[in-house]
């Protein structure tokens, strides 16, 4: 039942994304069709016939072209936004699955930065490094907060303060630290190299995410564990004379499933931080790609929907897989039986 609910949840997400994406793609194509119409009426020998046909219908010839002629070159203009969005998300999935960069078909929808697997690798690497650091620090703080009331109080305050501080605050601080100290300034000018040589470029990005995201997760885990400690079975086990270490092990085991759900929510929130930090530190991952989907110049606004589709499809797929794994693990690890 819970797996079905996750399926329903992500079906809604896909539909929502597809509608907005399809609408954006149709908008970009329509703009292109208006540009093509100008060329058509200047150079095409059939332009006169089209003008006459438009006049018969009482339409502006350009509007007539966009409505009746442009869909021959851009079939998407004749389809619904949802269908266009779903088709293009499917095409992106096909590209990802086949490890190909087959985006020649829609080159003007991709913009300057061509998305490929290297963007996914770098983001996944960053996400894994950041999230494992966040989880480790959060667990350490949560264990301390369960034992110490003043630390729990401190944790609550810091979690609330950092809830209102955007991640770019730490990025700015780290940039200033890098620039005005003896730390190699190379670390602030974008990722270079490959393999292990590029790991150094992740130090400050990971620290930026760590400083924002670990407090909230620590507070969430602490709340779950403190609630578990207040359960009657804990008192019963203590009364039975079980050593405190074994009681704690029971509590930790019972807390695993709710903690996993707290972590899942945090994991999704961390992805926004990862995208922002990736963009600011120029790590050339999905965040950099996302920033390149919308280019605003004093003269024009360019939106590259396929680059956007690539980023959002990867994120939807990633979260869907992680949510399913968490749910399956929850069912298996639930000490009280299936929920």
């Amino acid at each position, binding site marked *: 039942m819970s797996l079905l609910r996750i399926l*329903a949840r*992500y079906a809604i997400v896909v539909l929502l*994304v597809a509608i907005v994406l399809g609408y954006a793609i149709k908008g970009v194509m329509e703009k292109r069709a208006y540009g093509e119409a100008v060329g058509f009426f200047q150079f095409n020998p059939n332009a006169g016939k089209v003008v006459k046909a438009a006049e018969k219908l009482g339409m502006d010839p350009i509007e007539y072209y966009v409505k009746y002629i442009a869909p021959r070159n851009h079939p998407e203009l004749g389809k619904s936004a949802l269908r266009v969005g779903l088709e293009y998300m499917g095409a992106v999935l096909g590209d990802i699955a086949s490890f190909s960069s087959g985006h020649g078909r829609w080159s003007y929808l991709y913009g300057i930065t061509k998305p490929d697997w290297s963007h996914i690798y770098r983001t996944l690497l960053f996400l894994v490094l950041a999230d494992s650091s966040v989880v480790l620090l959060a667990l350490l703080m949560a264990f301390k907060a369960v034992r110490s009331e003043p630390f729990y109080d401190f944790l609550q305050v810091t979690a*609330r*303060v950092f809830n*209102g501080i*955007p991640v*770019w605050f730490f990025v700015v601080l780290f*940039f200033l630290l890098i620039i005005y100290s003896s730390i190699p300034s190379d670390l602030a000018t974008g990722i270079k190299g490959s393999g292990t040589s590029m790991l150094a470029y992740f130090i400050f990005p990971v620290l930026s995410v760590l400083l924002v995201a670990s407090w909230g997760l620590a507070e969430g885990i602490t709340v779950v564990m403190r609630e578990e400690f207040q359960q009657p079975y804990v008192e019963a086990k203590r009364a039975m004379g079980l050593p405190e270490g074994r009681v704690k092990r029971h509590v930790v085991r019972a807390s695993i499933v709710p903690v996993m759900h707290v972590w899942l929510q945090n994991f999704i929130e961390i992805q*926004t931080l990862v995208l922002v930090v990736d963009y600011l530190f120029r790590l050339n991952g999905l965040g950099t790609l996302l920033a390149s989907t919308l280019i605003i110049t004093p003269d024009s606004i360019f939106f590259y929907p396929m680059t956007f589709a690539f980023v959002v499809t990867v994120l939807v797929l990633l979260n869907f897989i992680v949510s399913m794994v968490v749910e399956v693990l929850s069912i298996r690890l639930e000490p009280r039986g299936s929920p």
Partner: protein
Amino acid sequence: MNRRRVGALMLALFFVFTALSYATLDRVKLENWDNYLFWVDYPRGAKPTWLGDSSKTVRFSGGTEYVVTGRAPSNLILRGAGEVSITIFRPDGRIVRLNAEINGTTSVNSNTELAIQAKRFAIEELGLRGEDFAFITPTQALFMDGNREPLKGNYTVQVHPPGVEAILVGYTYGPLGTDYRGRDLWVGFVGSTVNTLILAFLTTLFVVLFGIFLGVSSGYYETKFGDAVSVVLEALNSIPYLPLAIVVIFVLSSRGTHGKLEMGTVELAVILAMLLVGKFASAVKGIVMHEKVQEYIESARVLGASDLGIILRHIMRAVLPYTVSYSTLLFAQMIAVISVLGLFQIIPGVNWGSFVAEAFTQNAIYTLWWWPLSPSLAIVFLSVGLTFVSSSPD
């Protein structure tokens, strides 16, 4: 003093500071923030005045004394109409006289007549060459010696008639200096603060309204409708908000002046609230589900109370205190969210995110460190204040 008082004091200080700064702000400058042509006469990359560079920016009418100890001033801006004459008494005894007809705002650098006269003085009197003006402005030449070095000493600058407002532009300008387009960063900072606060407030308000409606309806009515609302709320929490917000705002906005996206503040707040309501609505739903199985609710129902009556009289009593306490945190969170979206240029108008993003795009973080630091410090101050206010009484 307990935490809540400290928080209230911090917030009061912040809002008074913002209100005073906004009330005294030059609105023309704020309206032209994205109009790069407006800032053509201002110094580029000027330091804040409190950093104490010798080359200050001085605003005057009639006349002023000006001391050059390091760098020569970069421009002399004039505001007024009619025939204007400028006389500069230099420390080497030379007197410079410039005349021109002006109408509105102009400067020695941008006014062709004044620029030609300044260059003529530099070439004929100081022996500078025409190609030197690739590296210095006409105004700078008026304060230099024959070796293209600033001529140190006391100058007297007179502008006639006295009704003409003059600004001798040095390399320090206002409380936050200027960016590399010449824009007054103080104007950007105050404008972005006000815009961010207004949008965050409205978004918080809509999140609260939508969240209460969705949370109460899905929590109280365990019907297909309630289930559907719950799944939609969970769906909104299932992917990061950033990409979705970017495309939704892009699709629903129009193109404004200076190539920026344009959308009404209320519409924008509604869209953001719809994307961000999931977490709050789920929390409200939890409270409602906990509350509705309580005995006193069952008693009220047996006594004939309607669903609406139960919700308004009993359920909301549990929901509202949580909402009030949570809304301060939500406000802080919305400020962070808006600044992140601004970073990706998706929020129309200047805001803390777009203000910092500009520092990155202009590579100003390497030189003008006070620029990205100013909204950073403001956001921390505000977040700490809001946290303290929302904390439980000591």
